[in-house]
């Protein structure tokens, strides 16, 4: 496969929003104006390209089991970075789309599968089933220490 056909496949055949119909929530909600749509596109591109590049560079030192946490960490960090930069340098845009930019995090986990390996790791992780009793108890202990004045809602 040459570069041109990879590019065409990325834009047409494998375009997540267009063909696979993924990530439509922020796309439809935000694309009420050209400026908002381009802003979200720029933020998504920054996060997706940035996290994929860094992961690709880390590939050889990163053992398989640590890939998913590292990927999530980078995507969450880059998303926050994108929101912070937007708030500083494009405040109008920030007001319009900042709420939706954070949805990029989930989208990148789904869309950002850089290799068949990573996709199957994501899918395998979904099939792992519930956490162990011990892990659940630990979560409860941490939550009871942290919850403070948090409202009771869906919990």
């Amino acid at each position: 496969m040459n570069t041109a056909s990879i590019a065409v496949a990325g834009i047409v055949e494998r375009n997540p929003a267009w063909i696979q119909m993924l990530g439509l929530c922020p796309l439809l909600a935000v694309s009420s104006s050209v400026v908002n749509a381009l802003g979200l596109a720029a933020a998504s591109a920054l996060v997706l390209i940035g996290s994929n590049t860094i992961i690709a560079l880390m590939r050889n030192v990163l053992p398989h089991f640590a890939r998913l946490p590292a990927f999530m960490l980078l995507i969450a960090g880059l998303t926050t970075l994108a929101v912070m930069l937007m708030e500083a340098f494009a405040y109008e845009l920030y007001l319009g789309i900042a709420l939706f930019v954070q949805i990029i995090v989930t989208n990148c986990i789904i869309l950002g599968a850089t290799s068949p390996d990573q996709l199957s790791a994501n899918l395998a992780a979904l099939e792992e089933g519930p956490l162990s009793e011990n892990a659940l108890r630990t979560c409860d202990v941490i939550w009871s220490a942290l919850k403070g004045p948090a409202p009771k809602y869906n919990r």
Partner: protein
Amino acid sequence: MSARTRGFLVLMTTTLVVISALAAVFEATRNRVESNRARALWRHAQSLTGVDDLHQRGTPPAAGSAIRLDDGRGLLFGSVEGYGGPIDFLVLLTPSHAIAGMRVIRHQETPGIGDFIDQPDSDWMRQFIGIDAESVHQIDAKTGATITTDALWRGVHGLVKKVEGLQ
């Protein structure tokens, strides 16, 4: 080095790098962000009150305080914890302490569920107009956005009571 140790070290390093980068950007953009917020806040305040030289007051007052306008109305600055983070809002009081207007200026409520509060002209938001602090709780909750509406009730009620207590 075992793969386990290496994975641990790489994850720790990544965490440190990401946190440092965020802290650095936060510090570097702090002043800019604050002046952006102040400008946006005064813009909301001016459209709420109809007074167009408010921005000359410089840095906006902290949440929980108020300024008296020349015509006797009070402009109150509030902030309350919502579902997704703080909700910053303004309340305009008539000299007889009735609510003349309300404006949410910043929030992080869930898109499509709690973000109706940033539409000042919606029927729901207009329910605040003309009532006093005690009647705020009679405003209907919004299905699915209990926490958001509850936060606004508490926020507006608490803010008006607090400012009345200061007088």
